[in-house]
């Protein structure tokens, strides 16, 4: 449904307008955030701070404008031109506005997201505040950490929760605060946080004691394949917290939510009876296929996610992207995600990336980059080869392992895996 609507309407109730919003150490509320009175519509608001992004979202929620919000660095010049030609005025962090090249009627209440672009150039996916609000009903009062990059699906998830539900405060982490977020979170009493497995792994790796000082009751992981090792490590640091992982994307919305502390989801969730409120999950070949009530606009029916699944007993594990996950070693196929899970299961490993390396005779070999857990003393590649040899077929054992000093991280908080 993409028909233009000429009369503006308030898209969803701002029940959370008086929720606390901490930005750059300042305690505000949604209502007292700075205002953007001159924001055009449709507008692509490119930001370099979380505060500006939240102000744009509140403006959108109050006035029903058409909005795309993203960090400035994610939208290159070519994409700015494309947006201009699609009717968006471009608003830069300093307030400078480039008028749209195409004049058109706004789609009232439309919020646009850019996909992460992990499979090519970012795509625009149409949503509304309603379709982005997947957590409804009575929620226990919480103060949420907001570490995500503005405009990503995960960011919108936390933002809409705070804007539309009572007692859901926000503590915004700006990019320059990412390394020290546990200190900020502890200071402002953050009780709930959502992050990628890489984000959590880094926090444990940098300073597990600082992390443990955050009074977390709800821990959520998403955005990347979630392995058992990170779930177990978080459980150790936070024995009483609820630990959940979410499978969500701009295209299919939040489709899988698992609270039992285990990687993957129960096999019994596949091919269940259709229910208007619940996505239908299925597997075609090795690929996860989702029919979701939270699809973006224009996406109907089954969405082939491009994510590879593998069965492990009564669980379905999501191991990685289909196009990059499979490594063919001399005709034997192995999942990079599975190898990575095995490496990550080694107590001396904080992070691992697994990839194919061109090799004679067998075409491709499994190779890995590893960040060791400094707290547990040195490990060698021979230790890891031995560890993998007892858990993987011989062609799946990484033969070349390079040790890195720190975990590489992209702006989306995902590691470059």
């Amino acid at each position: 449904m993409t028909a233009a609507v000429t009369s503006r309407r308030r898209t969803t109730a701002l029940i959370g307008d008086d929720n606390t919003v901490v930005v750059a150490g300042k305690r505000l509320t949604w209502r007292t955030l700075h205002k953007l009175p001159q924001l055009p519509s449709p507008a692509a608001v490119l930001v370099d701070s979380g505060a500006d992004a939240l102000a744009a979202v509140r403006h959108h929620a109050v006035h029903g404008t058409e909005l795309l919000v993203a960090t400035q660095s994610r939208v290159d010049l070519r994409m700015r031109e494309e947006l201009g030609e699609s009717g968006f005025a471009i608003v830069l962090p300093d307030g400078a506005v480039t008028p749209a090249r195409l004049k058109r009627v706004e789609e009232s209440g439309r919020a646009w997201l850019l996909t992460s672009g992990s499979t090519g150039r970012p795509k625009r996916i149409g949503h509304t505040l309603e379709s982005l609000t997947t957590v409804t009903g009575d929620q226990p009062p919480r103060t949420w950490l907001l570490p995500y990059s503005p405009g990503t699906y995960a960011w919108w998830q936390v933002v809409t929760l705070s804007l539309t539900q009572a007692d859901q405060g926000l503590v915004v982490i700006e990019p320059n605060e990412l390394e020290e977020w546990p200190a900020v979170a502890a200071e402002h009493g953050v009780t709930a946080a959502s992050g990628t497995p890489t984000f959590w792994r880094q926090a444990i790796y940098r300073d597990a004691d600082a992390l443990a000082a955050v009074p977390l009751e709800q821990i959520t992981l998403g955005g990347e394949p979630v392995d058992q090792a990170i779930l177990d490590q978080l459980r150790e640091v936070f024995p009483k917290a609820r630990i959940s992982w979410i499978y969500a994307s701009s295209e299919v919305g939040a489709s899988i939510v698992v609270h039992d502390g285990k990687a993957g989801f129960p096999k019994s969730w596949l091919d269940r009876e259709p229910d208007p409120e619940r996505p239908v999950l299925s597997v075609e070949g090795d690929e996860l296929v989702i029919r979701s009530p939270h699809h973006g606009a224009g996406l109907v029916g089954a969405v082939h996610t491009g994510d590879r699944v593998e069965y492990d007993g009564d669980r379905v594990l999501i191991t990685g992207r289909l196009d990059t996950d499979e490594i063919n070693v001399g005709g034997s196929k192995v999942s990079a995600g599975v190898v990575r899970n095995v490496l990550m299961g080694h107590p001396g490993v904080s992070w691992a990336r697994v990839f194919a390396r061109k090799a004679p005779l067998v075409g491709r070999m499994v190779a890995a980059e590893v960040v060791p857990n400094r707290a547990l003393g040195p490990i060698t590649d021979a230790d890891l080869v031995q560890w993998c040899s007892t858990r993987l077929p011989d062609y799946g054992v990484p033969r070349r392992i390079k040790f890195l000093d720190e975990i590489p991280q992209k702006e989306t908080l995902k590691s470059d895996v």
Partner: protein
Amino acid sequence: MVKRLTAWVLDGDPLGFGTMSSVARGRVREMMGEVMTAQGRSLPADDTADLREIGFRSLDFSELALRVEDELGDELNFDAPGLRRIATVGDVLDFIEQLQSA
């Protein structure tokens, strides 16, 4: 496609002119031993030892090639030499030597 090796080393080259790099046969043998050790086996001293008997398989050979490439800082060119029979430890060392001069 024939690719020339272009890595240069300065070891033993005090004037800094550089020489075309290669990994010496003894060093390749050492690496072959490392590959075997990592797989829980050992490399016999005898160059005539049969690869099948000592359990040196194609994955091990591929790993050895990657180790040599990492030390050289360049890829070995496997397209150039003709197919040949590699049955003993000595054959492996000869072959790697030949690849480096390809």
